[in-house]
């Protein structure tokens, strides 16, 4: 249903939070990130992919290596603890509005 992954679901995973912590302190390659975990490399890659999909990490090609950057702007959005609550209501109200617009049309 959602094309973009849910950012809150992304940070609910402990491995992904650990990855964010690592990359927040310095830009790293996938290899150096993976070397911090016992997890298999493809598993780490999958986690990186999810973090990129929800904009918590960005990629930068540098020669043969891909470097991963932490995106503080996105993280700040998450850090604002009221935001999920606001979004919940915003989505409900968007739905209400579109339902009633159709309702009006039908009358």
């Amino acid at each position, binding site marked *: 249903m959602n094309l973009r992954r849910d950012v*809150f*679901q992304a*940070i*609910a995973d*402990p491995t992904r*939070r*650990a990855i*964010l*912590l690592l990359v*927040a*302190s310095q830009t790293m390659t996938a290899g150096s990130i993976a070397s911090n975990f016992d997890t298999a490399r493809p598993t780490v890659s999958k986690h990186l992919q999810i973090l990129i999909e929800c904009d918590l990490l960005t990629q930068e090609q540098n020669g043969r290596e891909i470097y991963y950057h*932490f995106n*503080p702007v996105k*993280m*700040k959005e998450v*850090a604002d*603890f*009221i*935001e*999920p*609550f*606001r*979004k*919940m*209501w*915003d989505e*409900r*109200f*968007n*739905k*209400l*509005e579109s*339902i*009633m*617009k159709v*309702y*009006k049309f039908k009358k």
Partner: protein
Amino acid sequence: MEQKTKITAESGKQEVVITREFELPVELLFKAHIESDIVEKWMGTKVLQLDGKKQGGYQFETTNPEGQVVFKANGVIHDFAANRKITRTFEMENTPFGVQLEFYEFEELSADTSKLHMHVLFESVEQRDQVLQIGFSWGLNMAHDRLQDVVKKLK
């Protein structure tokens, strides 16, 4: 992007104000709050009972695909003025969130636009903060706090 739904929750207070403008006549905005089948659609819950009148009440229930009840809420309607105001209580059953007192004010802005003003009072500051953090209840731990610190430094 402009945020249509605005939330005010001052720290240390036991209230929340939610406002939202709609491209709908106030009559339709009000209707969306009192007709069971419409409420079901936008709230995403089943409405077992909804008696929109003074001293009326309501009951919501949501079940998962396995048929288990995952959300149950109810309340009584204290005041009811068509297209203007609903005062009601709201309680999520089997949660520590307590009872909320909710004031819904419906305002006509023009023939085709309206505004909803929701003023929600909680029993305590703690309960309000817990409810505000519902979206955050995915088991975040220390790592998250540390991340917040990092973000603060980057600000």
